[in-house]
């Protein structure tokens, strides 16, 4: 597709041609259409970046064209032009995704500026791969009402499915080896609507087991393309508990940092649900409030015997019924019958929770140290089956894969799960959840507490898949916290979220930065200075981190070592411990890397201003802390007394020697350092860093301590600081975790319910007191 292609749709030749000429002169690829019909035909064959659209046209109006384009090519940005503005059409055009409105006569400059801004804001276009073109049938004038129920007979249901199959992929539930799976439906007869539960949930159509996020060519930074593989699809026969799970995924992937791949699939998918009348023996959906649903579907079927009741859940659903099949109003008896079959199914459920939901959060909070976690997880195989089959599990891993020519590569994401041994392991070898009991507890806490607190919904819909898949028979959350009652009501309908979400195509695509300088600190550590290729400053806060990419090797989170007060470049000090850091260590000046971020909260500058500051850096903890040291020295008058303590393992492992020397001579800070073990040339302090703390004088009421070091150091430093009566609120720490995605999605960096990449990496000790996994 042309990155600057514009389609002009206007029935007035003079308007159409003059706009065309202006834009051509300004360097755009321009095509024109006289009518809405012609425009739609062109769009079907060819893609455009921007459409300039007249509202009043004979035949199809601009609004109708917008509707169809939205269904067909949702990424085309539309600008409305009209001589007859009305509040109503403006509002309607906006809801249909039009980005702005110009009133005729149009100033060419206004239009050109608008188009340019639109193209800029769109960023790089995703490669959207669709196998089939959608050919929407003309809309019927009168839409069926949303939320209303109708009767559809089997023959008409069959024609609905068959008509859909002509225009998109139709997937549904089929039997396989005595169980059921979602798969492509070739004919209506193989579709099961009375199944109990499927092996994998339908969420696999929104988050596939493995997908390409970016395609790139090593050495050619212009060739990093965000990639979205999607095709128009209808999923038929989704049970209400899975619909509720999709609503939860919508919260996760569409609300903050909208995920472009998820959004594209969600917008391209029709959901036709079916009431579950034949529940799995392991299901406890009624206890989770997911037995029935009123939201989250386009259509919902209930098998009432001879025919199906069909409930319309969205305008899209209403269009489907109007355009593809025939329905009739239900009789009074049929409405009664729907209630009867639903109630009849309720008694089929064998399992339920005993405890009201009000006690649920508290129950988990009080059971963190319960011997249950240890004893029940003994037989855990760490096989991941429970999380792989879970409709509400969404964690993923990201890695680079190269073609054999070592030039073309892809950045892939693949399902991952907190029950797998290496999920919380970082490059230095530390595994923050290394035993079965802590992983087992984390999963149940996620289900019952962390997800609920973060997204307002319980992270379990009671489908019973994990209990079925777990060979050790320990996975059912029902058993673990037989405490949940009705799940929290869904805060908002998923449909609304999807409409409002704007894809951030570049969410996972790095910006480019040039390596302008490299300095070796020790044989294992170097400091790298980068400049973003667009010349802009990174805009970091001291204490934030970036995700740095070496294409083909991968991406890693690295804290920023320089202060924003140091100009337009930024520095990353990096120890060579893993694949990415190893590749970085081999880079030469002038090389290009990818940067995403800055991410995380950074040190709380406002809380530090006006206070005495005690800075404690252990080993490479100096890397993130250096950004704050520089900041404080550059804004020295904003802070009180400043004390800096630095400890290295040996004289050879001391870092930033010039700066250490400068700080020791600088009258504006009090500097002490020590090494764990000296050598014949070392004349300074010997002993671990905690031995320095008793030597300094601090006023606990006006001092803030900022501590960064290896995990083991924190516990001992805290003990010494508490001896100085420093309150928990005044002790600030920066934590290391496996921040894989940086945008609060992949789950790897979680400490209890907190995402280190979002709420961290900087925490006060007071905050960490409630995070048991932290230190």
């Amino acid at each position, binding site marked *: 597709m042309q990155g600057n292609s514009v389609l002009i749709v206007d029935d007035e030749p003079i308007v159409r041609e003059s706009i065309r000429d202006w834009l051509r002169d300004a360097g755009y690829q321009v095509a024109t259409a006289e009518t809405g019909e012609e425009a739609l035909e062109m769009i079907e064959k060819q893609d455009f970046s921007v459409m300039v659209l007249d509202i009043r046209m004979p035949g199809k109006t601009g609004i109708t064209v917008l509707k169809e384009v939205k269904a067909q090519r949702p990424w085309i940005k539309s600008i409305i032009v009209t001589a007859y503005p009305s509040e109503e059409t403006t509002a309607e055009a906006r809801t249909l995704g039009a980005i702005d409105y110009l009133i005729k006569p149009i100033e060419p400059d206004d239009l050109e500026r608008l188009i340019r801004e639109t193209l800029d804001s769109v960023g790089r276009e995703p490669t959207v791969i669709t196998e089939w073109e959608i050919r929407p049938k003309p809309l019927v004038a009168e839409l069926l009402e949303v939320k209303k129920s109708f009767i559809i007979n089997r023959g008409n249901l069959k024609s609905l499915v068959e008509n859909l199959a002509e225009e998109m992929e139709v997937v549904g539930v089929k039997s*396989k*080896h*005595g*169980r059921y*799976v*979602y*798969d492509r439906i070739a004919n209506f007869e193989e579709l099961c609507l009375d199944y109990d539960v499927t*092996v*994998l949930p339908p969420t*696999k159509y929104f988050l596939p*087991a*493995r997908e390409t996020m970016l395609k790139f060519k090593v050495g050619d930074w212009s060739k990093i393309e965000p990639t979205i593989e999607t095709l128009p699809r209808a999923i038929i026969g989704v049970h209400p508990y899975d619909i509720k799970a999709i609503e939860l995924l919508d919260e996760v992937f569409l609300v903050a940092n909208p995920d472009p791949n998820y959004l594209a699939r969600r917008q391209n998918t029709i959901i036709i649900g079916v009431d579950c009348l034949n529940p799995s023996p392991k299901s406890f959906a009624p206890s989770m409030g997911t037995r029935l649903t009123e939201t989250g579907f386009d259509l919902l079927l209930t098998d009432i015997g001879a025919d199906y009741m069909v409930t319309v859940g969205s305008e899209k659903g209403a269009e489907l019924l109007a355009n593809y099949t025939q329905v009739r109003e239900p009789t009074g008896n049929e409405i009664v019958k729907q209630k009867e079959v639903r109630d009849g199914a309720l008694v089929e459920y064998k399992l339920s929770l005993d405890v009201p939901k009000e006690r649920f959060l508290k129950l988990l909070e009080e059971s963190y140290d319960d011997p249950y976690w240890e004893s029940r997880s*003994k*037989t*855990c*195989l*760490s*096989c*991941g*089956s429970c999380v*792989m*089959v879970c409709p509400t599990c969404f964690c993923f891993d990201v*890695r680079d*894969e*190269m*073609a*054999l*020519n*070592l030039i073309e590569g892809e950045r892939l994401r693949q*399902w991952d*799960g907190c029950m*797998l*041994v*290496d999920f919380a392991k970082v490059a230095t070898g530390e595994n923050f959840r290394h035993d*079965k009991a802590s992983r087992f507890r984390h999963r149940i806490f996620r289900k019952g507490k962390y997800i609920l607190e973060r997204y307002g919904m319980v992270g379990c819909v009671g489908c019973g898949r994990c209990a079925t*898949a777990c*060979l*050790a028979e320990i996975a059912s959350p029902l058993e673990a916290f037989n405490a949940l009652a009705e799940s929290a009501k869904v805060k908002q309908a998923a449909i609304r979220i999807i409409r409002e979400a704007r894809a951030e195509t570049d969410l996972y695509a790095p910006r480019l930065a040039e390596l302008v300088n490299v300095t070796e600190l020790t044989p294992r550590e170097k400091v790298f200075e980068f400049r973003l290729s667009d010349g802009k400053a990174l805009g970091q806060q001291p204490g934030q981190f970036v995700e740095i990419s070496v294409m*083909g*090797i*991968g991406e890693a989170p690295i804290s920023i070592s320089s202060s924003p007060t140091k100009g337009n470049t930024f520095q990353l000090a990096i120890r060579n411990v893993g*694949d990415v850091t*190893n*590749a970085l260590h*081999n880079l030469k000046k002038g090389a290009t890397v990818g940067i995403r971020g800055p991410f995380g909260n950074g040190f709380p500058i406002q809380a530090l201003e006006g206070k005495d500051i005690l800075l404690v850096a252990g080993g490479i903890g100096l890397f993130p802390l250096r950004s704050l040291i520089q900041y404080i020295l550059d804004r020295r008058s904003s802070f009180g007394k400043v004390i800096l303590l630095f400890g290295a393992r040996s004289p050879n492992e001391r870092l930033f020697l010039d700066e250490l020397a400068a700080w020791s001579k600088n009258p504006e800070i009090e500097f002490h350092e020590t090494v764990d073990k000296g050598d014949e040339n070392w004349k300074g302090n010997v002993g671990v860093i905690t031995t320095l703390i008793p030597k300094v004088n601090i006023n606990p009421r006006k001092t803030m301590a900022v501590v960064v070091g290896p995990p083991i150091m924190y516990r001992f430093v805290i003990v010494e600081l508490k001896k100085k009566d420093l309150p928990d609120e005044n002790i600030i720490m920066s934590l290391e975790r496996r921040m894989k995605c940086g945008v609060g999605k992949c789950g790897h960096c979680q400490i209890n319910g907190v995402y280190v990449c979002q709420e961290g990496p900087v925490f006060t000790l007071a905050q960490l007191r409630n995070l048991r996994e932290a230190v």
Partner: protein
Amino acid sequence: MKPKVAFFDFTSCEGCQLDALNLDGGELLDLLNAVDIVNFREVKTERADNYDIAFIEGSISRESEIPRIQKIRDQAKVVVALGACACIGGVNCLKNYLPMDEALRIVYGKDAKYYNTIPARPIQAVIPVDYYVRGCPPVTAELVKVIKALLLGKKPDIPNYPVCVECKMADNVCVFERNMTCLGPVTRAGCSAICVNSGRFCWGCRGLVDDPNIDSEKDILKKYGLTVEQMIERFKIYDTYAEVAK
């Protein structure tokens, strides 16, 4: 300078090598662009002794194999174990349940006196091994993945989780639900659950994960009807060395 690659075989069926370069034409050309294959008995007759990367198939089951493999280790910068026999000992280790004299007698009869044999073992029991391409036979894609990682200077990401993960991703109905039993819950993934995908069960040819819960797996096999003897037979096929070494 393209790295020089050599393939060697010890006690094995040579099936891993046969399968190793079962690539499509384009991929094979890309591979040959990236590396020089200097030593590969199944493919070419010329041989050279200056190689950087040695792929070794087979386990060690004779005294005379030990100095030979040590010489390869001395020459190669990187040694990669190829296939189940080299990585975990494989089916050759089944003989370790017998006294070696008896094993020789069963195989060679009256000619047994002309041969010698030692308990079979994976190559890591004799020399340090850098990387492993597991399986019986290995997945070609994984061999290619290891080669690419070596060329790129990164660690190949070989899963340390059980086959169940990939089996679930493939949307398979669990083997245990189909009245069969399976070693998938303790066996290292990386094969995309190929045996289960084609209607069978996992035999464990890729060896165990780093920290397998064998006790739990045995409880499960028992629950699903295997006798202790059947269970031992199942683990014996590929995991004899790991189990006996414990």
